[in-house]
């Protein structure tokens, strides 16, 4: 089963990386940006009896290692139901 974890800095935490990317985009003429934040995508493939079971295991991984609860929030989504190659390019 494939699970995707999105790890983001909490809203109250200053995202200096995002601010630098936003400035660079403004330099390219994208100066209409109100905000830009950079996060991480972690894709996990694991055997599990059900999607709920997979999410529970991955949630435990997030709590123990994948995210730092002091700085980061995370969301977990199943990716099996997404069409292969369905990403927009």
């Amino acid at each position, binding site marked *: 089963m494939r699970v995707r974890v999105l790890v983001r800095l909490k809203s109250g*935490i*200053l995202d*200096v*990386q995002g601010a*630098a990317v936003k400035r660079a985009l403004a330099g390219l003429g994208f100066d209409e940006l109100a905000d830009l934040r950079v996060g991480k995508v972690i894709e996990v493939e694991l055997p599990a009896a059900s999607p709920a079971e997979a999410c529970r295991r991955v949630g435990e991984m997030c709590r*123990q*290692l*994948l995210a*730092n609860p*002091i*700085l980061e929030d995370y969301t977990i989504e199943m990716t099996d139901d997404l069409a292969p190659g369905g990403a927009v390019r």
Partner: protein
Amino acid sequence: MPRAEPFGKMLVMRFGVVVFPGTWSDCDFHYVISEVLHQPVKYVWHRDRDLHDLDCVILPGGFSYGDYLRAGAIAGRSPVVDALRDFVAQGGSVLGSCNGFQILCEAGLLPGALTRNECLQYRCQSTHLVVDNADTPFTRGLRPGTVLTMPISHGEGKYYADPETLRELKARSGIVFRYAAADGRVTKAANPNGSLENIAGIVNPEGNVLGLMPHPERAAESAMGGTDGLLLFQSLLGSLVEDGSFLKR
């Protein structure tokens, strides 16, 4: 836990310097402990769990496991850091510098977290540190308000804690060092990385785990431009008492 034992009339403290793949300050710490302080010291590999013959464990700077995921995240879950929890519970001393501080926070042995410098630059420079708490085994030879000079070398040294954690930290005098001007004033200009309240180093409630971003081992000989880093080790050694146990706070 066996304690440091008097060696002849000289008290010795047994140090262990932890080496992770990617650690870079291990040799510097080993050198300072053995050649400058003349104390027994050995390297401890990241997979080792046996710390029974040590009195003080050093977590040096570097990029443990490449700092993948987050600085110190993977090292914070390594076998040696797992063993460190018992070591700390039994009163052993731990000093984490730079990446070592990041590892201690990631492991939950110290509160808060270290994140990317606000200036976005990797900062490698000399800093002044004002001593906030001189009532720890690492600072008992100093006075509150003493200004030390030590280098920093990091890209992710901005200390962050939520307001409640910060309140608790301040209430128990957990802040040990703050970045300051040469005269000891804590100013925004003296803050190299945007750390909350200019925090450069903190200690756990029991006082036996110190984490700091600066490098005491790089300020341990006059030939290196200063010896203020030695004061931390000398304070620690000064905490040894005749029966080989440590003075508590």
